[in-house]
């Protein structure tokens, strides 16, 4: 008996978005990164294409963070002292993109300044030729002040500027428009909110080819199922032709998992939790792998070992000829 594979016929597809610009394109990046373009649910090559594999970014900071897990300090070591060194180390670790998160304060406890943000971004751009994302510390006024300066400093580089949220997106979008960058549009795990913010940003004149959606996800054990289902629903809507849900999706398993107790803490936890390092790495890699299956196009990670493991999964999934 022949068994026929039931196939879906979709009309829509995910928008292709390119981050970074080489010298020919008005920037200084040694390569660009294109994501999106899928025409079927993740990796179902029998009914659609995945022209670009999901990309893996590593998060770095403008200064050594105070609140990161000891395990991360151990793996990055001295590179964390200098954003340029850290960017180089991330590139060596195999990242497709650097995700630079600016801090609220400098190492001395002084408020971060636009001058410092410019200098850090310059340094990272010089240290690594990878496409770059730059996110503010997450307080509207500071974000706007720092990101406007960053956008100007890196004019033409097609940075991904983050984070646009419903309560604060206008200034960041304006900076992206003025200096040829892209934006990260983040909404709290909701299909309609996600769509709405894309519309608002697009209405300001930013082309859809310069918007990345961040639907937000929880870590494994801390609400991953909400993010998972919202992403699946967004992706299904995209294929059904809803144009404002067709942006590539970015999620941040690194940020989400390394703040939870399972990853952060090695002592005073139940014995059944097992070995701390192994658990922490599983937490990040499992969260990322699960979200790859719900349609993530860019995943921001923190640990190079998680990147290596998730990369192997992606390589096997995007290449029908490969085994494993």
């Amino acid at each position, binding site marked *: 008996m022949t068994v026929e594979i039931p196939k879906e016929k979709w009309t829509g597809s995910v928008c292709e978005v390119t981050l970074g610009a080489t010298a020919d394109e008005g920037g200084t990046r040694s390569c660009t990164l294109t994501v999106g373009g899928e025409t079927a649910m993740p990796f179902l090559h029998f009914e659609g294409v995945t022209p670009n594999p999901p990309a893996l970014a590593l998060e770095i900071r403008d200064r050594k963070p105070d609140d990161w897990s000891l395990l991360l300090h151990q793996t990055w070591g001295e590179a964390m002292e200098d954003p340029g060194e850290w960017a180089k180390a991330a590139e060596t670790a195999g990242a497709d993109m650097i995700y630079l998160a600016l801090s609220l304060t400098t190492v001395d406890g002084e408020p971060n300044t636009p001058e410092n943000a410019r200098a850090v971004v310059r340094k990272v751009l010089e240290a690594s030729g990878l496409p770059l994302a730059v996110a503010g510390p997450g307080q509207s006024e500071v974000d706007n002040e720092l990101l406007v300066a960053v956008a100007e400093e890196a004019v033409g580089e097609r940075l991904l500027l983050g984070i646009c949220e419903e309560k604060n997106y206008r200034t960041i979008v304006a900076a992206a428009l003025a200096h040829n960058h892209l934006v990260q549009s983040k909404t709290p795990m909701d299909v309609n909110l996600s769509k709405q913010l894309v519309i608002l940003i697009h209405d300001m004149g930013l082309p859809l080819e310069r918007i990345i959606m961040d639907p937000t996800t929880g870590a494994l054990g801390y609400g991953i199922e909400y993010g998972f289902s919202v992403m699946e*629903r967004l992706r299904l809507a995209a294929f059904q032709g809803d144009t404002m849900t067709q942006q590539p999706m970015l999620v941040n398993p690194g940020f989400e998992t390394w703040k939870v107790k399972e990853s952060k803490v090695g002592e005073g936890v139940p014995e059944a939790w097992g070995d701390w390092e192994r658990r922490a790495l599983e937490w990040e890699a499992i969260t990322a792998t699960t979200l790859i299956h719900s349609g993530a196009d860019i995943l921001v990670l923190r640990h190079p070992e998680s990147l290596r493991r998730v990369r192997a999964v992606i390589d096997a999934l995007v290449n029908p000829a490969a085994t494993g």
Partner: protein
Amino acid sequence: MALSGLEIYKLLPQTNCKDCNYPTCLAFAMKLAAKQAALKDCPHVSEEAKVKLEAASAPPIALVTIQGGEGEVQVGNETVLFRHEKTFYHRPGLFWRLRDTDDADELKRKATEADLYTVDYVGIDLHLDGFAVEAASGDPATFNAAVSAILSVSKKPLILLAPTADLAKAGLEATNGTRPLLYAADQDNWEAMAEVAKQAGIPLAVRADTLEALSDLSQKLKQAGIEELVLDPEVSGYLDSLERLTTLRRLALKKTFRPLGYPIITFPGVSGEVDETLLATEHIAKYGGLIVLEEFNPASLYALLVLRQNIYTNPQKPIQVQPGVYEINSPDKDSPLMVTTNFSITYFSVANEVEGSGQPAWLLVTDSEGMSVLTAWAAGKFDAERVAKDSKAFNVEEKVSHHKLIIPGHVAVISGELEEEMPGWEIMVGPREAVDITSYLKAMWLN
């Protein structure tokens, strides 16, 4: 395929005799279609109609039950491709593979350790579901002894991995009073395996490397009288696995393709070339039914058990805890009072942290309709008004002598408004993440 009320009506006697206690046959048919009545309530239905109706009402993916000395695992009966469409019902069973080439003591040691493994996640006890015992020695007596050894220390359900009917029988002799899954029938041995499974009244797994061969075999087994089947499509990597398991789920649900309408068993670590945990992750997210692990490692098992719990949570019903004031570590009138939402993960993160700190405290849990702090705040379910209202409703005034309330750092913005809503109270802004509560209490409360 489920029949509509009208389609069912055509198969009924259409006499409106009311013996089913519904006024008309059509009314009864409508109730049947909505699964609110059972066909047996109609004493006059013809045999032919009965067969048709029962076939139509059989679930598109059969339910398979494996029982141990205590407890059971049920898989199958899934009805959707995506969990948001309704929910995924039966969590995939996680089994650890043991081989009879280990001696009895070693098997007992391993089985005991894994049997006792239990881990708490938001108040739910998670554990391994059972063992898959392999007749790797090829010797019936050795296999029988191995199964006995494992059953002497564990009452969990078993899967017997036996390549021949003789080995299967030898293993089954040791499984008295339980209902293991027999693995597996294939092109060569299916008749003998079917005989063994039928005699013992147990479910049988069927293995083939193409879906065509798999459906041919499953039909033969069904004709041989085996109702509960489990499919092994022999996947070994991330991509062939995703393609075949997706195809199987779609065939069952969209085409009601009976020959492949059964739960699926996978062995994510079997090739040795892929990352077992990450392939098991894929199987949990995408359509695995029984997952047999090569390795037992608490750090990885805990993560997979939590993932399974998350993916199989009903999206329409987030797990909530009852709003109210909770006592942690026997607090008194001088103990700190903290507030959070009634989303279970939020509640347990905070409660576990406070408990772990050893510091007695009161925890006010407001009714946020099962949303986490930030989501509830964004939705207006955890604003100053709600916190003030629930503080009053649950009489926090009477619990503490001080007038201090610690709110989650994520909602620092409501502190001003909350002080207006709760005159005479000092609102303290706590940490954003639960993991920082201990150090916060040390720094801000004890000093």
